[in-house]
């Protein structure tokens, strides 16, 4: 029991060290563009991200994203712009809005539900 606990503590500590390290990392323009365009759908391809695609459409969007970042726009603003222009379909990662809250909440609902289930079983014993 004791060793299991220490095992857990060690893991959690290491994990949080890692998490905190990444926050301080500086990202360059190209990294920002890559991160965003990976989350965008190439509207003229089949289930391919804009980053991975070489289609005309994708290359245009890549240019737009790059120039918007240079203008100092944030990721959120650029997404907003693209959604207004092409619709939510362009985002591979759905926005957290009234339509999609269930999609994002679902795993947590399941998690909470199963925690209740386990604690119920424990209490029953």
């Amino acid at each position: 029991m004791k060793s299991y606990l220490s095992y857990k503590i060690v893991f959690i500590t290491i994990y949080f060290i890692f998490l905190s390290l990444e926050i301080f990392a500086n990202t360059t323009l190209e990294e920002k563009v890559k991160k965003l365009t990976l989350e965008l759908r190439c509207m003229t391809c089949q289930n391919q991200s804009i980053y991975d695609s070489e289609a005309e459409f994708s290359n245009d969007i890549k240019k737009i994203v790059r120039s918007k970042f240079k203008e100092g726009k944030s990721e959120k603003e650029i997404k907003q712009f693209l959604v207004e222009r092409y619709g939510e379909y362009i985002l591979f990662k759905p926005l957290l809005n009234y339509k999609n809250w269930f999609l994002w909440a679902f795993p947590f609902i399941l998690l909470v539900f199963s925690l209740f289930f386990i604690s119920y079983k424990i209490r029953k014993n």
Partner: protein
Amino acid sequence: MSSLIGFASLVLAILFNAYLIFSNFFIKNNGKVFNLFIRTSSVLTIISFFSLMFAYVVSDFSNFNVFQNSHSEKPLIYKISGTWGNHEGSMLLWVSILSIYGLLFSFTKNIDLKFKQETLLIQSSIHILFGLFIIFTSNPFLINSVIVEEGLGLNPILQDPGLAVHPPILYAGYVGYSIVFSQAIASLLNHNKNKDWISVAKKWSLISWTFLTAGIALGSYWAYYELGWGGWWFWDPVENISLMPWIAGLALVHSLLMAKGEQLLKKWIIFLSILCFSLSIFGTFLVRSGILTSVHSFASDASRGLFILLIFFIITGFGFLIFLLKTPESSKPINFLFINKASALVINNILMIIATLTILLGTIYPIIVEVLTNDRISVGGPYFNSTVIPIMIPGFLLMSIAPILSWQTNKVRNARLYVLGFVVISFIVLIQSYFSTFNTWGVLGLILGIWIILASCISIISSSKINYDFKLLQKINPYIAHIGVGVAIIGITCSSVFKNEYELNINEGDKFQIENTMISLEKIEMTNEINFQALRANFLIEKNKKIVARIKAGKNYYPVSKMITTEAGIFHQWYRDIYFIVGDQKDNNWFVKVYINPFVSFIWVGVLIMVLSGFIGISKR
């Protein structure tokens, strides 16, 4: 002629099954007659499938299905694989594999006769439903109304050796769950008197899971070298559909393993058995209805979709209804306060089901939203990466400590050694990652992968005396499977997190350097093959001024269907793949994209280990 034989034998097979089910209500069949009927109907279905295959092989264009999907100039292997390279043929394959499973199961000995017969009767009912589906909505034996000399050809993207064998293997996985489903229902109907069905179910679920693993891996490997996108998993709806029964099946195999000695978790096992087959049929519905657009949806037809949806509701509804009506009496409770293998497995099972349901919702959410609000949204890779992976990580963590836990008690063996090992690996990976690029997921994945492998190795060494024979192999088999998982995790992590890519505009004779390897574009050539024209760029790879390999990458043009496919060139090394894609020619230069995929081969090796271990598990009595 072969179309007629095929159609007639399919109809006969359905009639035989119908008679069997019908007669079972009135007269008690004796075992011999029953088996004769089941086997005849199975053989008839298989004959039906082979007569379609024969029509493809001899290019019999009087068959409408052959006319639409084949061409006399295709190589023989693609004529054969053309049989299932279309909607109608693939459904016939589905039913044939269902029959093969029924046939094999009818030869099982040493099980309760009533249980066996009821299992086969449920299997026959499924056969009838899907047989009627084929006859009424997707008949592959229709006669061509006009006389033609030549067919229209097979989708070129499907003309690939990997994809020729992918559907039968994948279907062997999907459809295998039918027998697990039938067994679960038969066991419920038998009021759970039959105790040995768990060991029978274990074998069949392991067979299905192993084939499903191999099928998914083949599809994924095909996507890797044929789509030419540099990746191997795209969270495409069709991939998700195959992943759902896979994860649920994994949970099932583990639960059955745990139920070995006692009647533990019976309710859960039956639930999972029904769920696995329901997910398989649901997948068939989503792919075949044409709701999802992908390379798998050959033709969309609303009536087909409705028909499969109906079958899905009948089978799933029937399954869960019986489950609710005849729920097995609750078995011995598991003590979650104990930290042992049983509770670790239960928690892992819960995590797997959460992951499965999350994938399910993510896959169908765009459809739901479109129906309700008329808006189109996408749920793609980023959503699944940020939900499914965090759900799975605690599971992998539990998996890595599982070997030191005992089955019943709270004792932890060799704990100090394991903690020490974990800390050492964490620090080595952390230090190593500081000298290369740092990435949280990368570090986490590497630690988990290495740790799972090492923990399994320690268990193998400490749990067995040195005597090498097959029995030992069977005893350490679970650890072998887990080593496979560890190897695959390392491959998945490295190839997705530490992937590098280079874009170049070059001409013939140009040289360039990528990560201490010299690559030169020697020449570009055009050739005419049997059924396509090929454009190939020849790359010469040199290291330390020595020629290491010559790689060809390019495109194919298929005149029959007027399609262009990308043919990626891959230079395999054990620690990385160099992946070439040739794009268009612009201003006398060719656009070339080069990916460096580190440790990507580990994924296939890991999966291969899992599949082999699956077969070892099946061979166990």
